[in-house]
């Protein structure tokens, strides 16, 4: 079989962004060191830190900021139905929901300590 730049498959990967490429080629695939010893040619690799920690204070502050900006009254119509139908996988989700219910009580205490119980 022969492949060429203009041949079948050249359009594949359409819709994939540089972020998609980074997620894949820097983190996955075979590592040559597993096959070839340490005596190989060195080459300077421009390193991109592709690892993103989504459980961080920055993320939390961003979530809070986004929640603050959200207009609940206008956008929320019909959402519970959609969430209900979308969340068909309940097994782990239910356990996690339980933990979240408990965490919710702690939020109430914090809210009370801040003072104003509701926004007017």
């Amino acid at each position, binding site marked *: *079989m022969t492949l*060429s*730049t203009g041949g079948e*498959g*050249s359009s*594949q*990967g359409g*819709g*994939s962004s*540089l972020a*998609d*490429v*980074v*997620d894949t*080629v820097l983190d*996955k*695939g*075979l590592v*040559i060191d*597993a*096959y070839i*010893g340490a005596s190989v*040619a060195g*080459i300077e690799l*421009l390193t991109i830190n592709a690892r993103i920690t*989504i459980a961080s*204070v920055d*993320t*939390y*502050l*961003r*979530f*809070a*900021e986004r*929640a*603050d900006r*959200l207009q*609940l009254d206008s956008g*929320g119509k019909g*959402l*519970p139905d*959609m969430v209900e139908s*979308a*969340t*068909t*996988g309940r097994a782990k*989700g239910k356990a*996690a929901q339980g933990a979240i219910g408990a965490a*919710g009580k*702690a*939020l*109430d205490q*914090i*809210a009370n*300590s*801040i*003072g*104003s*119980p*509701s926004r007017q």
Partner: protein
Amino acid sequence: MAHSDRDAGRQSVCYVYGVVPADVEIDEDVRGVSAPPARVQVIRRGRVGVLVSQIDGGRPLGRPDDLVAHKELLDMVAAVAPVLPMRFGAVADSPDAVADQLLSAHEDELAADLENLEGYAEYVLHGRYEPEAVLAAVLQENPAAARLRDAIHGAPEEEARDARIRLGEFIGQAVEAKRQADTEAVVRELEPYAQQVRVREPTHEDDAMYLAVLAETSRSGEIEQYARELAERWDGWISVRLLGPMAAYDFVRAPEA
């Protein structure tokens, strides 16, 4: 090719893209990494071959064009032949080193892994919650979070910082619970199409699912149809993207030591 010591930094090195069956051929006009983009060649030993480029060892590697070239070459091959992709940045001293230490030394296991991949390729199914929709859902499902949000609103920045962090952490956990549930549901629904599914780590706080799917390329149409149905089902809630067919980055394994 003799080089003086002064040239050592500019020596050419052998860049390795991935392993293919020995009958794969690459057109002369196909280009890979480096600048100007280097020609791609196949080195063969027995039943296996490897896609390589001779590149300037003095030029740093890893610009966006390099990453894209590495992936596009392997994905182009994966659409028509099995390929074991290397992680970006694999270099060796010479084509001989690659031929001896990679191909000859591991021919049997590489050939077996390629045979297992025959007719298969990787697809990536990525879903991301619509940012406002997921937040609205979390706040509606958790009145305490909504109350805390209201309490924080208008409170002095410094005074409310800890409360903001707690609220954000709570929202993060609630989104994580949704991510788990939706990921499990889609993994189950993929069973008819997929030989294997790997769950990738989320790379964005609004990720709903990030799945690598190993499936027969002959069933591309069915997977695309499933992804379209998902996108319709979740219109306004989760945006869905399907990538591939691509090289099976998430399903290759290193040799046994």
